[in-house]
């Protein structure tokens, strides 16, 4: 079983601006946790802390504690390359590399030490089958990945992340750049990953959050900083929210 993701007292600043203030949240394994809230409330910033993508942003400071199992994510001594293999990420816009379909998957695998040709071929096929892409691309593995449709590209990115066998997968609005049909396919896929991974998904689509999520966390901006307002089982958060702010947002009266 995968370890839970524990976030304690996480604060993130860009220069003088506080993007996230004192967030404490435990993301359980084997379930889908959705982060909801208006734009600019720090949901994406939160995801970026969890795989230390924040290291790439100049002037960005993170404090608090994040743990994946026994791995202390924010400890400067933690090897970010290993961390990012264990904590995968999918972006809003599909971002396959300008390589062939096969090399998109093989390149990261090779970098993480899989060199054997047979093993590589095996992992590539398994990952592509996992996202239902194998039958669609098995005859064009050497063709450019950028020639695939948007939905196929996003599934390829998902396969690329899954090929590394991560424990946690962060999804930053993975369906928002896709047409409704592709979006549905990707959504179903993510739901099927529930048992294998700890999943944390940012979404602006409340209907999607309702359909997919087991747990939900609602963020809101107060005093210029993003804060966690309410967190709990998705059904409860959507049907009987404890906070009036949550209720107003969910019913569309605010946000």
């Amino acid at each position, binding site marked *: 079983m995968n370890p839970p993701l524990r976030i304690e007292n996480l604060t993130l600043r860009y220069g003088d601006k506080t993007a996230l203030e004192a967030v404490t949240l435990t993301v359980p394994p084997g379930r889908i946790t959705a982060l909801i809230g208006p734009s600019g409330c720090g949901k994406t910033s939160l995801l970026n802390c969890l795989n230390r993508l924040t290291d790439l942003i100049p002037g960005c400071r993170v404090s608090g504690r994040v743990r994946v199992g026994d791995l202390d994510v924010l400890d400067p001594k933690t090897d970010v390359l290993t961390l990012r293999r264990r904590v995968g990420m999918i972006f809003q816009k599909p*971002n396959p590399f300008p390589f062939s379909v096969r090399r998109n998957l093989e390149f990261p695998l090779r970098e993480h030490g899989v060199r054997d040709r047979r093993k590589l071929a095996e992992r590539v096929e398994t990952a592509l089958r996992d996202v239902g892409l194998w039958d669609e691309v098995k005859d064009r593995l050497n063709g450019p990945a950028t020639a695939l449709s948007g939905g196929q590209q996003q599934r390829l990115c998902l396969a690329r992340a899954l090929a590394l066998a991560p424990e946690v997968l962060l999804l930053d609005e993975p369906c928002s750049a896709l047409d409704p049909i592709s979006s549905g396919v990707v959504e179903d896929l993510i739901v099927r990953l529930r048992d294998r991974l700890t999943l944390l998904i940012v979404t602006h689509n409340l209907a999607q959050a309702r359909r997919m999520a087991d747990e939900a966390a609602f963020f809101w901006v107060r005093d210029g900083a993003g804060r966690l307002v309410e967190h709990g089982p998705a059904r409860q958060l959507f049907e009987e929210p404890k906070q009036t702010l949550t209720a107003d947002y969910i019913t569309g009266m605010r946000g």
Partner: protein
Amino acid sequence: MADSRARRADAVATVLVWSAALLVTGVFLWLLADVVRHGAGRISWSFLTSPPRNAGRDGGIGPVLVSTSLLLLVCLGVSLPVGLGTAVLLAEFTPASGAFGRLVRRSLDVLSGVPSIVFGLFGNAFFCKTLGLGFSLLSGGLTLACMVLPILIRSIEEGFRAVPNDYRLGAAALGLSRTSTLVHLLLPAAVPGLVVGLVLGVGRAAAETAALIFTSGYVDRMPESLLDSGRSLSIHIFDLSMNVSGGDANAYAAALVLVVLLLAVNGLASWLADRWLRRRVLPV
């Protein structure tokens, strides 16, 4: 009324734009035709391989071609690695708006506008005298490298900046090291910028005269090593047309060789880049 006036303005603009384009193309074609008409008759295998005789009025350009190639080789051998390194530093490891990056970029832009004769004087003082390399192909090549570097660095840097940031984030999120991201992903994606820089740089270096008079000299013998003085094609053309009476015919022929050489370099560079990219994108 207003309608017909607008139509007339359109017509005038069309004529102006077309005539400007035709003028530019026309001048270039005229120049090319002139060089071909006067030079083509002299071109032969022996012209390309034999040494100049009678101050260049007779004979060929063999040693001059060798010197020119060696100059370009030294120039590229030095400027390409240095330029690539600097461009990577500027584009990937310093923030675009940071003070350091701005300073370096401003200096490079100023440097690329410096007249080549100034580079010549600098090369003469530094490479020929201070480093004691004398009038030599090495001094000339190094001076050319200094001259070409600003253009090369800026073009390669633009090439890197044109690579979508999605690739960098995607690679980082997959736990790929910065080095392999750079080598396997960013560098291939930045190749178009590199080719532009290379073509501009080689063009500028091959056409250079002023900077070389002071550094590589104009001895027209076959060079035996990089420490020998040697004459580049452009200097040969300059010398034949300005200092040697009766040298015009060979000057034209040498000019034609230079033009063809530059066109060939441009064509080769884009062909190689195209092939290389294809191989990267579609591995066997």
